[in-house]
C-alpha cells in the first residue's frame, strides 16, 4: 500500500457533544476511495455517533467533514443536499428496527425513488427493485412481502438493498452484523465485500468485533472514549499494536482451538489519564497512536 488513492472523506477534529457528554471529542481521519475503514471500540465509545455525524443525522459541535472535496456541514442548497443523500448511504444495526413494519420490501427499497422522484414509470421501477433484490441475494418475488416475514439476515439484506438503491459511492455500515447469528454474519460480510468489488464502494465499517473487522477492513481505527487511540492498516494493528488498549482488545479475541485457548491470557487495560498535551503520533508510516510523547515512547519500546 505505497500509493494511496484519492481521499473520499476527510474528518478533521470532529467534536460531537450532547450537553456535557462528549461523545466524540476531536477525532481526525481520512477515508480513501475504494477502501474499507474499520472503526472499532466498546459500547458508548462514540463510534456510532461518528457515523451518524458524518451522514448529517446530527449537527456537529465542532470540526470539519469534507466529502468529495466539499464541506458537508455548511449551508447547503436543496440540490446539493439531494446529491449528498445519493452519494452517501447508511446500513443500520438492528434489522428489526430499521425496516418499517407497515411497508413491503419493495416499498422500503424504493423509498429513495419516491423522495428523489426517480423511476416514475411503474414497469421500470419494478425492474429496478427486482434487480436490487437479486443483487443482495433475495428473490425478485419478495418485493410484496412485509418486513416481518423475513429472517434477520434477509432483513439486513433488504436494508443493504435500500442503501444501494440510490447508487451511492460511500456507505457507512453501523454495526451491520452485530445483531445477527454468527453463520449469517459471514454471509452478510461476504455480500458487502462482493458488492464493494462490483460497485467500487467505499465503506466505513463500524463494529465492536475486532476479528470480523480485520477480515473486511483495509485499515482499522480503534476508538475509546471519543478518541481514536490507534489507526493503521489492518495487518499493522493486528500484528504490531502499540496502544495498550488495542493490545487489550486483541488479547480478548477467542480462537476456536482449545489448546491455544488454555494458554491465552487476557491483558487488562488500565486507563491512564492524558492531559491536553496528548496528540496523534505517527509511529510507522500510516500508523498513528494517540497519547503523550512519553507514553508513546514507552508503549513503543514494549
Amino acid at each position, binding site marked *: 500500500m505505497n500509493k494511496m488513492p484519492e481521499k473520499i472523506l476527510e474528518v478533521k477534529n470532529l467534536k460531537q457533544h450532547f450537553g456535557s457528554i462528549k461523545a466524540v471529542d476531536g477525532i481526525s481521519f481520512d477515508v480513501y476511495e475504494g477502501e474499507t475503514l474499520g472503526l472499532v471500540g466498546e459500547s458508548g465509545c462514540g463510534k456510532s455517533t461518528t457515523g451518524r455525524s458524518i451522514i448529517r443525522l446530527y449537527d456537529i459541535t465542532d470540526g470539519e467533514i469534507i466529502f468529495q472535496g466539499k464541506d458537508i456541514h455548511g449551508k447547503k442548497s436543496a440540490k446539493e443536499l439531494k446529491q449528498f443523500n445519493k452519494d452517501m448511504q447508511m446500513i*443500520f444495526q438492528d434489522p428489526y*428496527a430499521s425496516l418499517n*413494519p407497515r*411497508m413491503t420490501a419493495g416499498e422500503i427499497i424504493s423509498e429513495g425513488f419516491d423522495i428523489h422522484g426517480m423511476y416514475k414509470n411503474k414497469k421500470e421501477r419494478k425492474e429496478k427493485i427486482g434487480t436490487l433484490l437479486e443483487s443482495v441475494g433475495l428473490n425478485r418475488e419478495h418485493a410484496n412481502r412485509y418486513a416481518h*416475514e423475513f429472517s434477520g439476515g434477509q432483513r439486513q439484506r433488504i436494508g443493504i438493498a*435500500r442503501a444501494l438503491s440510490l447508487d451511492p459511492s460511500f456507505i457507512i455500515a453501523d454495526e451491520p452484523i452485530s445483531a445477527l447469528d454468527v453463520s449469517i454474519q459471514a454471509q452478510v460480510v461476504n455480500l458487502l465485500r462482493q458488492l464493494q468489488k462490483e460497485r467500487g464502494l467505499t465503506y466505513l465499517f463500524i463494529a465492536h468485533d475486532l476479528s470480523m473487522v480485520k477480515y473486511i477492513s483495509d485499515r482499522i481505527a480503534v476508538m475509546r472514549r471519543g478518541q481514536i487511540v490507534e489507526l493503521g492498516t489492518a495487518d499493522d494493528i493486528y500484528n504490531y499494536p502499540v496502544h495498550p488498549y488495542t493490545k487489550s482488545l486483541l488479547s480478548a479475541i477467542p480462537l476456536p*482451538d482449545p489448546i491455544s485457548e488454555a494458554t491465552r491470557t487476557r491483558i487488562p487495560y488500565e486507563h491512564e489519564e492524558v492531559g491536553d498535551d496528548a496528540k496523534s503520533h505517527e509511529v510507522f508510516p500510516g500508523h498513528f497512536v494517540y497519547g503523550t510523547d512519553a507514553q508513546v515512547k514507552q508503549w513503543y519500546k514494549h
Partner: protein
Amino acid sequence: MTQSNENLPKISKDKFTVVGGKHDQTDQLAAKSVSFWKEVRLRFMHNKLAIVGFFILIIVALMAIFVPWLSPYSYREQLGVYNAPPSASHWFGTDDLGRDIFVRAWMGARISLFIGITAAVIDLIIGVAWGSIAGLVGGRVDDIMMRIADVLTAVPYLLVVIILLVVLQPGLLPMIIALSITGWVNMARIVRGEVLSIKSREYVLAARTLGANTTHIIMKHLVPNALGAILVTMTLTIPSAIFTESFLSYLGLGVPQPMASWGTMASDGNNALDTAPWRLIFPAILISVTIFAFNAVGDGLRDALDPKLRK
C-alpha cells in the same frame, strides 16, 4: 503478544468436500403473504368477546337508524296511555306523558351515539394535531404544550363540564363542547408518546439519510405506525363520552325535553322507580350494553394490533 493461528492443528483441504449450497431453497418464503391489517383482522375475529361487542354495536346502530323512522309513533307524540307497562303495542311501555319508550329509547340512541362519536372525532383531531406537533418539534414547544394539557387535566373535570353547561344552557352543542374541552388531552398524550418513540426508530433515520423531508416521514412512517394506538384510544373514548353524557343528563344537565337521550330518560324514570320501573330499566340496560360493547371492541382491537401486550 498477538494471537495467531500458528498453534492450530493443520487440517488439509482435501478432507473437506463441497456439497454445494442450497441458496435458491433457503431464500424461499414458505408462509403465505399476509399484510399487517389482514393479520389484525384475523386476530380480531378470534376474539369472541370483541366479535359479540361488534355485532351488538351494529344492532344498536341499525335500531337507532330504523326504529324512529319506521315506528308508527313519534318520540314526542303523547298517546294518552300513561305509565303503561311493556305490551305488544308498546314494547318498552310508555312514560308519564304517554310517550312510547321504545321509540324514545332508539331516538336517545341516536343522540347518545352522535354525542359519543362526535366527541371522539373532535378529540381525535385536536389530540392528534397537538400530540404530534409536541412530539415532533420537541424541546421547549413540547414542554409548553404538554404543561397546558397538564393544567387542563389538573382542574376537576366534572367541575369544568358543569360550569360550562350552566353558562351555555343545556343542549346538544354545549354537551359536545363540554366533553371535548378536556377529552383530547388523553389522545394528545398517547399520540405524543407514539411519535417520540417512532421518530427515533432506525427506519426513520434511514428515511432521513435517503433525504426524506418531514411531510414524507409523517405520511409514510409516523401515521401508519401510530394508527393502531390512535384507533384503540378512539374506540375507548366513545363509551366514556356516552357514559359522561348519560351521567350529566342524569344530573339534569342533558339535552332539553322533548328530545331524548339515554341519560335524560333514565333520570326521568328514576322518579317512577316504584310504580313504572321499565322507564329506568330499559335506558339503563341500553347504556350498559352499549358501553360494554364499545369496550369489548376496543380491547379486542388493542390485542389484535399489538399481540405482544397479551399475556
